[in-house]
């Protein structure tokens, strides 16, 4: 189904809640999904994969345990939404040039949060001529996020061979991820505008999966609820 970004974000929020996240964390799922879709990755497909995994093992089993380094989740890995939200919370802190996060579940979902971190870092530098490049490498993909003029976008994304094994079910459910920042100066002429997508196609399987989770947030209709919604069936004037 071809959807708007608002639509996919609303579905992501409901699906994450329906899979067992709090509404607060469901907001993070919606944020991440929408960002990925705008940047040309299918956030809906990635979220469906993530929710299927984390729901199966229990949401609490993969949440970030504490700020103590190295960050840890649970026996099934570390939830990318949980780690990402905390990365984003700490965006204003001093950052190491290079960091590794271990056993991240669906690491693509970290990209939106890393993009936000680079935006905050650039704002802190207060120098628009500096471009911050975030290079992200993990078993599943290699990605570059460029932040210029206060806006961070996905500049490069290439799936590795591990990703292509997904269809045969061989893809590991989590992997270590390294990210590092590079600061380069750029001139305005060299700024490559990151294209923004406004639509996303959700394949039938993933749509069904997200809708199934979302349905957990809907209360079964009762006669009382129907009566409560409006003034009655004969409200014509």
């Amino acid at each position, binding site marked *: 189904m071809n*959807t708007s*970004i608002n639509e996919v974000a609303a579905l992501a929020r409901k699906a994450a809640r329906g899979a067992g996240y*709090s509404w607060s964390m469901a907001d993070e799922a919606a944020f991440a999904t929408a960002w990925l879709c705008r940047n040309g990755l299918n956030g809906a497909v990635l979220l469906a994969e993530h929710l299927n995994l984390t729901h199966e093992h229990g949401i609490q089993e993969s949440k970030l345990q504490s700020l103590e380094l190295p960050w840890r989740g649970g026996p099934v890995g570390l939830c990318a939404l949980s780690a990402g*939200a905390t990365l984003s919370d700490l965006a204003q802190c001093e950052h190491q040039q290079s960091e590794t996060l271990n056993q991240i579940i669906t690491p693509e979902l970290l990209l939106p949060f890393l993009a936000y971190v680079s935006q905050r870092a650039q704002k802190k530098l207060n120098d628009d001529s500096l471009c911050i490049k975030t290079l992200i490498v993990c078993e599943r993909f290699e990605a570059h996020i460029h932040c210029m003029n206060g806006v961070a976008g996905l500049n490069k994304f290439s799936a590795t061979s591990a990703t292509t094994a997904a269809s045969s079910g061989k893809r590991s459910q989590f992997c270590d991820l390294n990210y590092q920042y590079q600061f380069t100066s750029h001139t305005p002429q060299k700024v490559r505008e990151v294209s923004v997508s406004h639509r996303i196609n959700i394949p039938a399987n993933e749509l069904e999966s997200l809708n199934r989770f979302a349905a957990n*947030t*809907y209360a079964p209709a009762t006669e009382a609820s129907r009566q409560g*919604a409006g003034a009655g069936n004969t409200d014509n*004037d």
Partner: protein
Amino acid sequence: MTLNRLGSLHQCRLSFMRQLTRRMAKEQWQFSRPHFNVNSQGVGYAVYTASYPGGKASLVAFAHELPDELRSDRVIAEQWDTTFALFNGVPSVADIERLQQNVPLQEAGRISESELTLSRANRSVRLWNHVVDALASGQQPEAEALHDVGYLMRTTAVYGSGKFGAADREQLNHNLEQSDVFKAPFAVEMLTVYLIRTFVRDLVNHAAQCKGGDNAIQLDASLARELGIGNSTGLGMAPFLINHPVLVNNWIVAREEAISRVRSLEHIDATDRQCVFDLLERMQLLTDRWQSNHPVQQTKLIALKNDLNKAQSYLSKASMDTTFFWNELFNWCEENLSTEGQECIASLMLEPYGELVDGLSHCMDDPISHTLRIDGTQTVQAVTSLLETSFGWAKDVDWASDEANARCWYVSEEKLEPRLGERHEEPLEEYEQPLAPARDAITALTDLNRWDDSKRIAEFLVAHPEHRRAVQRAQWHRIAPYGEIRDNTIDAAMLPIDLLRAKLSFFGATRFDPRSDRWVRICLYPGAPYPEELNANNADHWIYPNV
């Protein structure tokens, strides 16, 4: 703001309908009707195109045959008299065919990024037949009947912002960088309803022509002008105010700043006072025509009529030599009038001062909240302080009581629409929507009190990710001090119609007629000039009926 205050707001110069009609007149938008293919049974389609500087948008309207027994006011309906989409540009024949397959289905269909809104409307059973029959027999309908109802058709939903496949608001603004025409909140929805009103007038004339043949006459222009488009709004709209605190803050701030600017005028001239005096008289007529069977609104209406009389008397006696004339009036209103009356007079006070206040309309959208995320480096103490600033009042609520927790917002499986249930009577809690920010703030404060004040809030949120929303809202308070409703949105005595009224008043709606505590009928654009009549002289004060 409290729910009582929000539920008493009135339209003003900054309301979105009035912003739009002023803009359309100022920029001399051109309107055309390239298609009107409706048969003698009233079935077919029409296209209305608005040309604005930098682009075009077209209402694609479908008229259907709907048996009376299927005509329902409720959102759970599946068929309507008319259905609509607002198309970005001018639709091709293929576009119209595509829309014909989907728009009549409404929620069960799909529209595309070329569409900006999706909506539908039903006839007023009371008025439609009366008007068609009268016109078909060569008579104008009774003016009183038109005044009593106020509209020939009533919409039950106007969906925008990417719903059911439509273009996102962000996409619209991205594509239209050359023009800020749809930057104002709900601008596409307001344009949709404006064009629907034109179609409905044309459709009633067409129906009369088909019925009466040579005997039929057209609806008199001045009678037609008094008709608006009805709107029935239920709980679907209520969560919006809670979910968009920054946007709502910007609306309230714009209105409050406008009032403040007018109150700060040291000297006024006689024409300004006369303008308010005249419009107050027209407001009295509007209030006389405003009918409601709801006891809460009936009481408020009686008070409002009384207030307008008192204000009229005050204005006629007040000396023009008074410095800060409007400020004096405002203070007098606070001491002598009901909340409805205070808000109504505050709106009227702004009327002579377009140059002073209309520019504030550019500050009523929200371009930043989507870029704001939690600052986890704040201390527990700092966030606690922010939460207490926003929700300190809620510490006095007895959250353990059944009354304070009586309600539960949820989404029904049946229609995927927000609803409000009784928490202690139905098994709804596991489906609860996060629409009780005051309760959630107090819960967060309780947990925060167990933490060391000097810790970073990020650390707290690792342990309590469920409080991220409360923390985010607390931090938003720094940029949106009017964003939070200072009342309990799940209290036994809470009236959802107060939430609806607040939003609808910013649209520019009048004649609020609650049908229950969670369902309100209104009228949009009554008195507004039609496209072919619109000019700089009639683009603004049309909202007040002529005496």
